[in-house]
């Protein structure tokens, strides 16, 4: 069998290059690209700088994993609070520039995180419980949003260190083998089989964790939300001329998930940019009454009228 985990991502993700390409192809997305791509790039930088998992790795219990218990089900991630100053320094100024409407609050948050008495634990907690008002001058919702953007690359970096522990486990669940979260993105990848005889042409489906970006193999023609496998009630939506960007729609539970079919690609596009490119498709799907399995930062509140 081909490997159970997705091929390693290319060494450096070409976020900027992919974004530039998208801007050329879909100029209408420029404003969204302009705002979100710098944030994505800043997050990528933090991911590279962050310490990752420190100390001994958690024990790998093959039997428990095979039974469907994800790796961190007992322990959770390591505390991200100590890394928040780094994340804040890299990410908050970029966010402030990208989202002028939030600039004042983000600057306040950045200032609060600078001092020796910085409320690190409270901000870390806010990433997970967005209702907590912990920083003066910052609304709970902006704090939650910003905290999550800072936490994400730190958690991704931890998950990268944990990935070997779940490799080669036949994990066939709809939630992440590392942290248990749902997938926010899916990709179809060409997996080179090391057997020198008849390999697949691609199209292996991988689900990608919304929180830590771990990827794991999952069967096609099935809804990761409700498990529906009747092909008559599943369909694929794509825009004419962009066949590789698709929404996999389940008519049983009215859910869609984003899917990038990379089987024919030479270079695999950055998943975040690919997801951004599908914003127009998402808009159409929302109009038809479908909801995302997990929303993207830019598509979470599409159903609300744009202010």
């Amino acid at each position, binding site marked *: 069998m081909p490997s159970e985990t997705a091929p390693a991502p290319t060494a450096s993700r070409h976020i900027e290059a992919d974004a530039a390409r998208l801007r050329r192809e879909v100029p209408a997305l420029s404003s969204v690209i302009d705002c979100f791509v710098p944030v994505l790039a800043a997050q990528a930088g933090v991911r590279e700088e962050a310490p990752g998992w420190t100390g001994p790795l958690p024990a790998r219990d093959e039997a428990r994993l095979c039974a469907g218990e994800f790796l961190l089900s007992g322990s959770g991630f390591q505390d991200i609070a100590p890394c928040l100053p780094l994340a804040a320094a890299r990410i908050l100024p970029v966010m402030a520039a990208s989202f002028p409407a939030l600039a004042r609050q983000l600057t306040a948050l950045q200032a609060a995180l600078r001092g020796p008495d910085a409320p690190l634990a409270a901000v870390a907690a806010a990433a997970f419980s967005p209702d907590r008002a912990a920083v003066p001058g910052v609304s709970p919702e902006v704090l939650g949003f910003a905290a999550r953007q800072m936490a994400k690359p730190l958690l991704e970096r931890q998950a990268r260190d944990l990935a070997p522990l779940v490799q080669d486990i036949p994990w066939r669940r709809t939630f992440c083998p590392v942290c248990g979260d749902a997938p926010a993105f899916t990709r179809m990848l060409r997996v080179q089989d090391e057997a*020198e005889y008849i390999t697949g042409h691609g199209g292996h489906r991988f689900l990608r964790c919304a929180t830590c970006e771990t990827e794991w193999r999952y069967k096609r023609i099935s809804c990761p939300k409700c498990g529906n496998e009747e092909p008559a009630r599943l369909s694929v939506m794509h825009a004419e001329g962009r066949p590789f960007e698709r929404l996999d729609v389940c008519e049983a539970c009215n859910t869609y998930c984003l899917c990038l079919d990379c089987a*024919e*690609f*030479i270079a695999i*596009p950055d998943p975040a940019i690919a997801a951004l490119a599908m914003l127009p498709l998402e808009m159409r799907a929302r109009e038809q009454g479908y909801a995302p399995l997990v929303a993207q930062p830019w598509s979470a509140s599409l159903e609300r009228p744009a202010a």
Partner: protein
Amino acid sequence: MPKAFLIDTTRCTACRGCQVACKEWKNLPPVPTRQTGTHQNPPDLNPFNFKLVRFSEHMDKNGVVSWYFFPDQCRHCLAAPCKMASSDPAAILQDEATGAVLFTDLTAKEDFETIRGACPYDIPRQDPASKRLVKCDMCIDRVRANMLPMCVKSCAMGAMNFGERDEMLKLAAARLAAVKKTSPKAQLLNSDDVAVIFLVADDPLKYHKNAMAEAIQPMTRKQFMAKAISPLRRIGGQTVG
């Protein structure tokens, strides 16, 4: 960034998926063929087959049989002799981004035999209707859209690989080292000169008479034409097998 193929013949099983996929993508019509005493069919490259799997079989003095397959196609030479040999510099282009050697409509005005003779691998053919010269174009339309060439996409054996040249060279070196363990004569063909690098397990002449060429130096058309070209640059010249 220049692109390259690695064609690992040790993985090829002559399923001819590449041969068929190439035709289908290019909308090339089926060629009426005959059985001529070999599974190789059509018997040679032609204006409607830019990709052809060549078959060759051999028996050594101990009676051990070997059967080799060679998915032949344009090598997209880094310094393309066909381009050097063409009279109009606009007739044959080399795409800067990918390194693809591209025959344009203007090739209809070139002397076919000169261009064909210039090719160390005997690749160019002439379309009988348009007089255009034709060959593999690296699926340049697809490659520009970040899509694998059809032959690579269709290969079910992992024999056809495509990507950045430096990555392919790395892969080629790794595969060569692996294959050499069991096949000491294994080698990469003209890897310094071409964008389509073949890995063979045995003497290249056992695969195809034009599997390999002498090294090619870049030169002007004048220099090029001044040299006796055809078919001296082909190393083979004898039908084997």
